[in-house]
């Protein structure tokens, strides 16, 4: 130890807070760290208050020497941050001097910072600094996990808000949907009602009077317009119905349904149409009957509408075949057919391939939408002047 003191550079390195007092407890030397906190040439008692041992130590050399085996905690009187140092006294030079070797006593990094202490201010052997580091690391980890916890909570809350928002939006959408359904229903009814009364009155006129040929012609034209408008309203209603109403599966006989619909169309069109069904033995399917009825009505009435007027045997073919997991149906006609550039657009909304014939441009669009709803598919092939085949599929469903 004596040797050490001579090499003040070394002792500075080992105990940067060391100091040496003489027999009168006058501080005669301070370590490089301690010297930052005090002037030299000051008495021990002026500089330090003995915090520990709490009793029995007086501010005399002899008293300190007799307690030299004890650990001292000295607080720096001139330091406003209550910095203390902890260490032991070692007698030097036949008890003429006392060497204090120790280290600052701090509990946290904050305290270190407050006193501008660096790691190099601590005694080289001081485990306190390592402990402090560990505590610090722990604290940081804790802080991180705390932050992560807060992040998670926040994230959770965000998700909860999102799902609440989604629910509100869903409810709004449901409400809008049902309102729209009602709206379309009311509008179609209120538009249709006066139209139908005009239609009825016209029928009355045609029935009751021998009309002048011009008057008859004009009234027939008016009747045509009314029928067209009525058809548009019906199709708009059909579209909205398909879009909004839930699919309603039931067993029904496809052959019978097709025959019924063909019958209805033939009654209306007043044309000697041939219907040629090619069906398998089993024609019962499990699907949405009212949607399939809409679909068949659209396809059959197209075949009627786009027939070749010059031929004597306009006909509609309807075939059904059963495959692995789906049914395939083909509606074929020997009508006017169409060119490829028209063919590829016929399933578009409001697309009309011909301005010569009445239509809304909705029929095939609705048909495609119906099959979308039912998990099926639709396609078309056509030869101009020869006829058109519309093929659609439906998944085979189990009840």
């Amino acid at each position, binding site marked *: 130890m004596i040797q050490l003191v001579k090499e003040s550079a070394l002792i500075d390195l080992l105990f940067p807070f060391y100091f040496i007092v003489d027999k009168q407890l006058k501080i005669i030397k301070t370590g490089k760290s301690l010297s930052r906190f005090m002037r030299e040439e000051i008495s021990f008692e002026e500089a330090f208050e003995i915090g520990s041992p709490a009793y029995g130590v007086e501010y005399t050399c002899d008293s300190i020497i007799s307690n030299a085996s004890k650990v001292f905690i000295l607080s720096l009187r001139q330091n406003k941050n209550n910095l203390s140092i902890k260490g032991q006294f070692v007698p030097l030079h036949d008890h003429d001097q006392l060497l204090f070797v120790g280290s600052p006593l701090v509990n946290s990094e904050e305290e270190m910072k407050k006193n501008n202490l660096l790691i190099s201010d601590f005694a080289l052997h001081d485990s306190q600094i390592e402990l402090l580091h560990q505590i610090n690391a722990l604290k940081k980890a804790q802080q991180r996990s705390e932050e992560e916890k807060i992040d998670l909570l926040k994230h959770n809350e965000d998700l909860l808000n999102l799902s609440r928002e989604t629910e509100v939006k869903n409810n709004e959408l449901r409400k809008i949907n049902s309102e729209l359904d009602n709206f379309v229903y009311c509008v179609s009814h209120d538009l249709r009602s006066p139209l139908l*009364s005009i239609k*009825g009155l016209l029928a009355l006129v045609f029935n009751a009077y021998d009309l002048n040929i011009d008057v008859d012609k004009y009234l027939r034209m008016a009747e045509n317009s009314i029928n067209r408008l009525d058809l548009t309203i019906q199709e708009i209603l059909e579209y909205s119905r398909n879009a909004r109403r839930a699919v309603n599966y039931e067993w029904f006989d496809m052959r019978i349904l097709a025959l019924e619909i063909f019958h209805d169309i033939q009654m209306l069109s007043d044309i000697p149409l041939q219907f040629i069904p090619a069906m398998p033995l089993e024609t019962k399917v499990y699907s949405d009957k*009212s949607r399939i009825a809409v679909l068949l009505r659209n396809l059959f009435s197209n075949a009627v509408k786009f027939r070749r007027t010059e031929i004597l045997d306009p006909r509609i073919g309807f075939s059904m075949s059963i495959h692995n997991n789906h049914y395939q149906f083909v509606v074929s006609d020997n009508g006017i057919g169409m060119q490829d550039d028209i063919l590829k657009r016929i399933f578009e909304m409001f697309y009309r391939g011909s301005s010569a014939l009445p239509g809304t441009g909705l029929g095939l669009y609705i048909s495609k939408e119906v099959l979308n709803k039912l998990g099926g598919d639709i396609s078309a092939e056509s030869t101009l002047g020869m006829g058109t085949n519309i093929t659609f599929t439906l998944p085979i469903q189990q009840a």
Partner: protein
Amino acid sequence: MKNNLRFILIDDDDIFNFLHQAVIKEVIPHAEVLAFQSSKGAMDFVKSDKVSETIFLIDIRMPELNGFDLIHSIQELPEEAIRGSRFYFLTSSLDDRDRARGLSFDIVSGYLEKPISIEKIRELTGF
């Protein structure tokens, strides 16, 4: 079919009442046709008078009491009050829910679409 056939038309749109009356008269000139513009008026009449052997043509969408409400009230009446009468909905509604609901009433014989045709009247009456 009896010759003294009676019809009761209930429709808030008076043009339809006129039109349907004309169509009925076209088929059966001597038919008695009564028209009401509200369910309430029709109901008051049904309560005050025997309406046996009458064909009712009832619109569905009407203000205040609609056609369903009217059929509902008529169903509550004692059977002899409406003996031999037939009830039809006659509507411009395309809604299949209306059709299903209309046909779910025991006393309702059919669901007809406006405007009623001469053929339909012949079919209903056998004239």
